[in-house]
């Protein structure tokens, strides 16, 4: 890309991008699976209460779970069929989690939605539609979008940052969304700005996605109803972890979030571009959030793809649909290779936050044993938050994990840059997770 490209100044790494496996593949809609399992906790906050019981008939888009009075998001049937009950599904993070299982009715037809003019709605109505549709942050954290957009009256924001960095290697879900649904994303941005009462939006896209940048710019140019909204696409120099909230805010606006406050404290609300598309769907189409784009990639899958998948579809069915796995498959990761979770089974349902499923062969992954810290300091250079992963790991190994608060590990969002550069291959992120647990334990005493 020509022109000035910004990035965040502190730390960061350049893992092999591996985007070429799927970056030119259009989003392909996967046929409905035979069964979905809708994990009750797809989001940050409390799990949903199931609203259906065994043998209930449900139609695609029906509300099947909700959270009352706590942080959470609604859950909808992603296919039409019969509820099999609440089962235990494998979950990449917590191991097993309760989920509503629905077996598909093969005769059911797909539901279609008609667009309406969202400008007819009041702010409250817009917000209600987003909440009703169960939209959560699709970049990974799964924070309920409706809650994020409900600001306390004393909080003033002036900028919406749309996160199209997609800095994780392999993943192209956001990239393809930007290329194929640029108008939806721009409309979604205007809906969010209307709710927030602001008129400026910066979209941060790493410059390894020239098609996405071009598509968004074209959509902005051709937009006939700007109504005073100013939307700017900012190409960013490729650097991991640019897609993290703090880094994307700094790259796009130059503002830095102080430790321990929300991004709204520096006048910014950040949304992932995929979430913005889901907000558009929720408001304009009235369509609940029950499907998403998942990049299925890696050398271990026969046919890599960007799939539009119903939430709750099992990874095994996805692999089947794409021709199966290759014999040298060594690791399956839900999410990206830097922050994703390795799983021991393919019997895992996709959730609203599953941006990728990677089938990695042995030559794509790290299997080296780790050694002692040689104090090279590479991790200090790599850490985007200015922390000291080396010292945390040494403290944890010495049994002093509770004494590591001095290294600021509350700021660590576990991007893995430190472990990526460590020449001793130390699992530094895991050491930091252990340290966080030890600090929590010691506070509890």
């Amino acid at each position, binding site marked *: 890309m020509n022109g000035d490209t910004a990035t965040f100044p502190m730390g960061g790494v350049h893992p092999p991008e591996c985007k070429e496996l799927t970056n030119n593949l259009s989003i392909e809609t996967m046929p409905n699976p035979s069964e979905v399992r809708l994990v009750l906790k797809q989001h940050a906050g409390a799990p949903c209460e199931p609203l259906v019981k065994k043998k209930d008939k449900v139609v695609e888009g029906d509300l099947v779970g909700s959270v009352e009075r706590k942080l959470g998001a609604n859950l909808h049937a992603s296919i039409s069929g019969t509820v099999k009950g609440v089962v235990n599904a494998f979950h990449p993070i917590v191991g097993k989690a309760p989920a509503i299982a629905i077996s598909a009715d093969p005769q059911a037809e797909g539901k279609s939605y008609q667009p309406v003019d969202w400008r007819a709605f009041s702010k409250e109505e817009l917000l209600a539609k987003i909440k009703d549709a169960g939209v959560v942050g699709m970049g990974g954290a799964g924070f309920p979008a409706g809650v994020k957009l409900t600001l306390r009256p004393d909080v003033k924001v002036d900028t919406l940052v749309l996160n199209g960095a997609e800095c994780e290697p392999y993943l192209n879900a956001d990239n393809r969304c930007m290329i194929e649904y640029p108008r939806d994303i721009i409309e979604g941005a205007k809906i969010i700005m209307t709710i927030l009462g602001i008129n400026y939006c910066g979209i941060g896209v790493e410059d390894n996605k020239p098609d996405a940048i071009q598509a968004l710019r074209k959509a902005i140019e051709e937009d006939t109803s700007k109504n005073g909204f100013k939307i700017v696409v900012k190409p960013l120099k490729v650097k991991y972890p640019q897609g993290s909230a703090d880094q994307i805010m700094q790259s796009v606006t130059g503002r830095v979030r102080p430790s321990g406050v929300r991004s709204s404290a520096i006048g910014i609300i950040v949304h992932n571009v995929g979430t913005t598309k889901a907000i558009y769907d929720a408001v304009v189409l009235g369509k609940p959030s029950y499907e998403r784009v998942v990049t299925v990639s890696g050398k271990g899958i026969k046919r890599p793809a960007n799939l539009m998948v119903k939430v709750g579809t099992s990874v095994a069915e996805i692999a089947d649909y794409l021709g199966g*796995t290759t014999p040298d498959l060594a690791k399956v990761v839900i999410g990206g*290779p830097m922050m994703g979770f390795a799983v021991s089974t*393919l019997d895992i349902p996709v959730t609203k936050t599953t941006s990728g499923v990677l089938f990695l062969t042995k030559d794509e992954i790290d299997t080296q044993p780790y*050694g002692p810290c040689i104090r090279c300091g590479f991790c200090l250079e790599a850490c*985007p938050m200015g922390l000291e992963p080396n010292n945390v790991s040494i403290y944890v190994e010495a049994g002093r994990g509770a004494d590591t608060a001095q290294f600021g590990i509350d700021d660590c969002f576990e991007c893995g840059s430190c472990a990526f*550069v460590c020449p001793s291959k130390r*699992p530094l992120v895991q050491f930091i997770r252990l340290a966080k647990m030890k600090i929590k334990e010691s506070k509890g005493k």
Partner: protein
Amino acid sequence: MRETQGTAAEATMKPGLASLFVSVSPHVKNTETVGKIMWTVVACLIPPLILSVFIFGFQTLIITLFSVGSCVATEAISEKLLHRPITIKDGSAVITGLLLAYVIPPGVPYWMPILGGVMAIFVTKQLMGGLGFNVFNPALIGRAFLLATYPVAMTSAWLPPIHHAAIFEYMGKGVDAVSTATPLYLLKHYGIGAVIEKFGSMSTIYGNFFVGWRPGCIGETSALLLLLGGLFLIYKKYITWHIPVSMIVTIAVLTWIFGGEKFFTGNPLLAVLSGGVMLGAFFMATDYVTSPSQKNAKLIFGAGVGALTVLIRLKGGYPEGVCYAILLMNTMVIPLDSWFRPKRFSEGAAK
């Protein structure tokens, strides 16, 4: 590795998938390893060794081989005895062996580096906990030990550079017959006049010393090759410029101020080109384990090594001070790293 579980998975898996790796994130790592870094340092240390054969003769190679052999063997045996994984393949013991040989005079008996190697690896490194846990630079403790126990050999086995590539000239000869004095010894005890008398005009001295043609320890004489090796390590981002630059600049400035008969009359260039400054600055003071990790701490560390070097050279009992200067500053690594913390992300926030 865990067995895959679940029915759908097995049903869909074609033969060949029996188990999946499961580990914590990140799942990709870059290609740098401790071994790769260490062997690169070894490669950067080889040119000065080859040159030393043509400066001091073939016995430098034998001394170095005994030193490296001793270090590697000691590492293997002590790790075996201490029930640790054998790590001789990572190259760190080879570096220690090379560096130990490089900081002893070229005319010492062959058993001496063997003894130094045991001291360096077993006592200084393995007994402290192995790679990553030693406080002091192993090679320099090896040298300090030899200097304390065999002071005569360690301070007199200097050889004048050979001529016409007569690399076997000193083989089998008694050292006493050919021993000479180092530039720093002459400078300390007889002044700059004696140095010029022995090594020629200042421009000849600068040229010869830069290339390596001067009496000194085996691997320390060629500023040129050590500089090239050091720059390569900086280019590879294996070391940073902070310690070498702050150390060399400090030595030059303090020598200029205090090194002459009057203030500001010392010879900074000669100070940097003599003794072990270049070897120490690029290959010893930058040892990861025994130097600070923070950039500002590195600057202070390098300046401390430089200042102590000049202090020992000018006021101490020895003509050269790089070895003890680094060892003394090694003790300051942990305090320095805790005084200088990296700048946190949120510190960049507008107040």
